[in-house]
């Protein structure tokens, strides 16, 4: 087991190293280049060289990369071109907001996907199953921005039930209870929109996994021993059916992060996604580079965790 974990960790580290090279190269290949942002066209050649030297841009790319990597490893991702703040500070500022959207959306998606998957898996071929299948097809085929627009229009503009942008109502101070309520109300639309796009795919997966499990001999044995239906489903069925979903969710985390960026953009949610889109428009390369790397690290880390979890649950994996 330890050997397996060591091997997977090493692989993840190597992947992370390649990722950092690829992302650094990508940002440096961008037209305009990292140095063009500061350069005034009326600057003399000597002044230009001085600025390039100050930012280390006169050195070969691999030296620049190693320097950047060295400081990135200590948590220093340089300074934003736009605001001159340390990139780490900017990201730290935005991070809690993104998590406030990301974690509820992920939980909502998981609960819905598992619930829908189990129900249509157990009632395979019934009207309920067909209805849920049709709905999930709709969910898969709907672009996220269309879903966001329609829900904003229906629940925000027409019905006036829910706020459509931001994380809280600004300019008002509430007592503690109302502050929490206000934030939750602001969260409902973006979190649901983000969650729905993944519920469709995951519930299909959960359904077929559940159908496989229900047919297994141990399910019949448990039923024969007199285990109650609810307990049979939760303890014997769900526990086994949920294992393959772990891998799929881990693989999709990158897509959720991308979806979160889009959702934040549409709902004016002041998280890392909006920051990404703003930095892109302002060509703020240090921030972009840090975010691309952070997103990649996040995906690699969760895939590593999923692999290890998988090996813990299913001993056959370790020895292959």
């Amino acid at each position, binding site marked *: 087991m330890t050997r397996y974990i060591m091997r997977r960790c090493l692989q993840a580290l190597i992947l992370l190293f390649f990722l950092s090279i690829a992302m650094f190269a990508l940002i440096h290949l*961008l037209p305009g280049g990292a140095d063009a942002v500061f350069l005034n066209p009326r600057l003399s050649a000597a002044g230009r060289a001085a600025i390039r030297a100050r930012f280390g841009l006169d050195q070969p790319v691999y030296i620049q990369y190693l320097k950047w990597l060295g400081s990135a490893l200590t948590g220093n991702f340089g300074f934003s071109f736009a605001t001159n703040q340390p990139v780490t500070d900017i990201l730290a500022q935005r991070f809690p907001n993104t998590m406030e959207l990301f974690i509820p959306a992920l939980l909502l998606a998981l609960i819905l996907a598992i619930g829908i998957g189990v129900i249509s898996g157990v009632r395979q071929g019934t009207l309920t199953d067909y209805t849920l299948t049709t709905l999930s097809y709709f969910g898969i*085929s709907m672009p996220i*921005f269309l879903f966001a627009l329609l829900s904003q229009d229906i629940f925000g503009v027409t019905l006036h039930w829910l706020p459509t942008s931001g994380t809280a109502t600004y300019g008002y101070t509430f007592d503690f209870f109302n502050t929490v309520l206000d934030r939750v109300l602001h969260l409902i639309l973006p979190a649901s929109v983000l969650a729905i796009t993944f519920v469709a795919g995951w519930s299909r997966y959960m359904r077929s996994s559940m159908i496989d499990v229900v047919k297994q001999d141990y399910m019949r044995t448990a039923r024969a021993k007199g285990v109650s239906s609810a307990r049979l489903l939760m303890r014997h069925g769900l526990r086994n059916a949920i294992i393959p979903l772990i891998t799929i969710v881990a693989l999709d985390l*990158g897509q959720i992060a991308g979806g979160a960026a*889009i959702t934040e953009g549409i709902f004016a949610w002041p998280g890392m996604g909006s920051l*990404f889109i703003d930095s*892109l428009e302002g060509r703020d390369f240090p921030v972009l580079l840090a975010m*691309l790397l952070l997103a990649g690290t996040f995906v690699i880390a969760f895939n590593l965790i999923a692999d290890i979890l998988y090996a813990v649950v299913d001993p056959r994996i370790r020895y292959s």
Partner: protein
Amino acid sequence: MDISERLNATPPTGEEIEPFLELTPELVRPRRSQGRIIFDRFIRNRTAIIGAIFLIVLFLFCFIGPFLWRLDPNVINVDNVSSTFAPPSLAHPLGTDDVGRDELARVMAGGRVSLIIGLTSMLMAIIFGIGVGSFAGYYGGVIDNVLMRFTDVILAVPLYLLLFVLSASFTDHTPKSVIILIAVLTWTYAARLVRSEFLALREREFVLAARTIGAKNMRLMFRHILPNAAGPIIVNATLLVGSNIILESVMSYFGFGIQPPDSSWGNLVSGGQSYFDSASWLVLAPGLLIFFTVLCFNLVGDGLRDALDPYMTER
């Protein structure tokens, strides 16, 4: 009656035993070709057929439609107030937009761009994915390791983020550049799929047999192994068209893809969203077209998956 009686009732004489197999019409009928079997199976899948018919209608709508509906999608008409934001009517079945352009004509023009981007980016991604996947799966070892680490790096970064960074910097926002960009980032799944098919197929006897009679590597890979992996690739390709249409629409929606005055369904939605309350057709028409197109590609893809499944054998 008990067992001894039953045994006596029909004495086992040679002549009276019925032939074990009767030649029923089922068996006499000539064997269908494999393509025919798959086609028949697909035809019987009702939802897949509905999806396929809708797709044909959509293609006719976007590519033949403009010959029947001759209004120019780019002609601006701001002569009087009633020519802009006109609600759907006989003259303009889908209304007009903020500068009086006919929405039906614009949706057709945008649909051509969206469909072409979806299809060609799929083709490029699949061809590249087949190339990478078959070399990695066939040769294994170092080649496999290098190619797969390469795909892992692309898969590790959220697709939308890469797409936005690359499109903001490298493309000129023409359909051609958007196609290349989407293809460059979406071949990875096909590559993994082809690789795993090759890993399984290369050990099979027919490959060994072909190698024994002197077939070279290239011939083995593309004449012998690849056709056997066709099923999953076709299914993946169909589903990829739908997801690429969504990618394009998201890019265009955020202003990183096709830019006005050129239109695609994605940027028609983003152009119309400011007027959603007063002129909802400007969002709903292109939006629902994206939705139905992707839905149909998904239905057809899943129908093909069932039809191509080798475990569902029949004569």
